[in-house]
């Protein structure tokens, strides 16, 4: 199990200032596996093929078949085995091929992994990082695009991490793998290659629970996470041309949540739009707005609004562009919000 010295089999490990998110993830997995031999990667098609998005490409060659493992096609087995491995002292980084497939493992995720530390009252840690792509807009078949963060954040004992940039993908994944608790690491399908940017070289960690201003603005606050940060930025640019300065707050992690920055933003702008791809009822945007009402109510100049999917199952390809929020919808919501007089 001794790792070989790191080889540069991946072009992304050079000093590319515009690395894709998937390359950043691949690099980070490689670095963490080299750093800690307890770290192991397993899931469906992760070893020989390097993952359906190539996020685990080259890991098998570098770290061997004990630590990079193609699993039988069974999501519950992947996560259930991860729990046992963690109890046995390993640091599992399982992959669920698409978040929508996690329904078939929800009893292990919500019923077991999330509460293992709690039900054993601290005896067993679950330092598991579940990597899984999610989100829509790329014409996948059913259940490949579902955004389930509202369900995941409703499970006490899970951390839910949603990087929006390539650098954050590295910094947050590093943090997730080193975190002693289970983390669901949500990777945006559209962001794998659609999001590019400079990525710090060497050790880079981004602490959980610290939101990031993707762009500043004092007229209105747009709160988003994962790929919708990119969409919100597009809306903000368009709004700027109309004289509206919209700030975009990238939450980075949903659990833990940076309540302080959300409250600060509302106190400053009094107007909030929360963007999510998911079904709105009972979703995480609703949680954010409830949080705003609890902690920043007196600063509100207008009712907070959501731009989200709809209360329907995630639709098929010809309907998905209507379902998934785009910059135009966000812009429209912001302009309508700005018309409300306090």
């Amino acid at each position, binding site marked *: 199990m001794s790792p070989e010295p790191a080889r540069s089999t991946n072009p992304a490990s050079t000093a590319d200032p515009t690395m894709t998110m998937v390359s950043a993830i691949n690099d980070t997995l490689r670095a963490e596996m080299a750093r800690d031999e307890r770290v192991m990667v397993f899931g469906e098609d992760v070893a020989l093929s390097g993952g359906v998005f190539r996020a685990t490409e080259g890991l098998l060659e570098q770290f061997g078949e004990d630590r990079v493992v193609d699993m039988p096609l*069974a999501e519950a087995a992947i996560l259930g*085995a991860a729990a046992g491995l963690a109890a046995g002292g*390993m640091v599992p980084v399982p992959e669920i091929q698409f978040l929508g497939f996690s329904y078939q493992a929800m009893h292990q995720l919500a019923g077991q992994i999330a509460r293992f530390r709690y039900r054993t009252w601290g005896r067993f840690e679950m330092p598991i990082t579940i990597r899984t792509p999610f989100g829509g807009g790329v014409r996948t078949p059913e259940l490949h695009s579902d955004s389930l963060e509202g369900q995941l954040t409703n499970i006490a004992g899970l951390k839910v991490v949603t990087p929006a940039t390539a650098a954050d993908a590295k910094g947050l994944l590093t943090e997730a793998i080193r975190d002693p608790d289970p983390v669901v690491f949500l990777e945006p399908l559209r962001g794998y290659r659609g999001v590019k940017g400079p990525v710090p070289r060497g050790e880079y960690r981004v602490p959980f629970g610290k939101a990031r201003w993707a762009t500043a603005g004092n007229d209105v606050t747009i709160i988003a996470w994962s790929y919708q940060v990119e969409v919100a930025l597009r809306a903000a640019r368009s709004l700027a041309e109309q004289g509206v300065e919209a700030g975009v707050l990238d939450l980075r992690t949903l659990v833990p949540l940076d309540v302080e920055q959300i409250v600060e933003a509302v106190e400053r702008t009094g107007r909030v739009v929360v963007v999510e791809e998911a079904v709105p009822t009972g979703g995480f945007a609703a949680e954010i707005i409830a949080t705003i009402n609890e902690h920043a109510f007196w600063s509100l100049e207008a009712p907070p609004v959501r731009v989200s999917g709809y209360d329907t199952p995630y639709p098929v390809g010809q309907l998905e562009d209507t379902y998934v929020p785009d910059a135009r919808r966000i812009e429209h919501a912001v302009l309508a919000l700005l018309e409300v007089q306090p």
Partner: protein
Amino acid sequence: MMCEMIKGRIASDRLWSLQRQGQIGTIAPIDGQEATTVGSTWALDPAVDWVIPQYRESLALGRFGPDVLDRFAAWALGHPEGGHLPDPIRVFPPQISLATQILHAVGLAWSLKLRGIAGAVLVFFGDGSSSEGDFYEAGNLAGVLEVPVIFLCSNNGWAISTPTSRQTAAASFAAKAEAFGIPGVTVDGMDPIAVHEVVSAARDRAVTGKGATLIEAVNYRLNAHTTADDPTRYVPAGELEAAKERDPLVTFRRQLEARGLWDRDRQADAERAGAAAIDNAWNWATALPLEQTALFDHVFAAPTQRQRRQRTDLAAYLGVER
């Protein structure tokens, strides 16, 4: 083994009474499954092997030390320490979500293999659990990975009110091993010696790198499923009476007495020791301190800011209430 079986039965009865007195919540009695639990775990080495129980077995896991019963009493009492089996006791707490623990066993056994530890993982589950997807996923995965795990299906004839005939059309539960590519064995689960023998063999296979074994131990549930169940509604007349003839506490005692290894005094000593064990466990459990703000302990290694705030609010609220 006889002493532990008696202890298990007495502890189970005592907890049953405590439930009827309103001192604890629902509990699942062990009656009829003592031989399977004790015979199998006496084949293990507590220094390297692990046990992952379902929710009855912890009454008779004395092989892994008296702490197991103490913690089980606390678990029944609803104290969070009940789920904590302190290191290095290689026992998991009771599992309520049926069959999930079978996959944990495979993962844990996988970690032993990866770390080069010559131990095995014994996982208990019932005939009902064998219908869960996790059982099949676990059996399949263990076959593929060749990990040192022993699947012990404690077939007591009933999954609450559903009889074996409604769980499977297979000839036996052990027969399912064939689909996993691992050996399957059926054994008389009312005979601790027979159970000990097959589990010993399975353990040998496990620690010598030969992989997993599925064992079906056929016993009978001599009591209700739990304190909330009424088996007279569904158990056919006469079936229970017939099964009682096979009660391991009776048959094994006769066996031992026939060989001159057991007598009335030993029986009385074992019963006193068993009663003392559960009384000690109960006394230990009821003396455990507990602050209501412990609610927030052990969700994460370190609480989130929101949890800290909730805890502070709760403490203030409770302070006001007092």
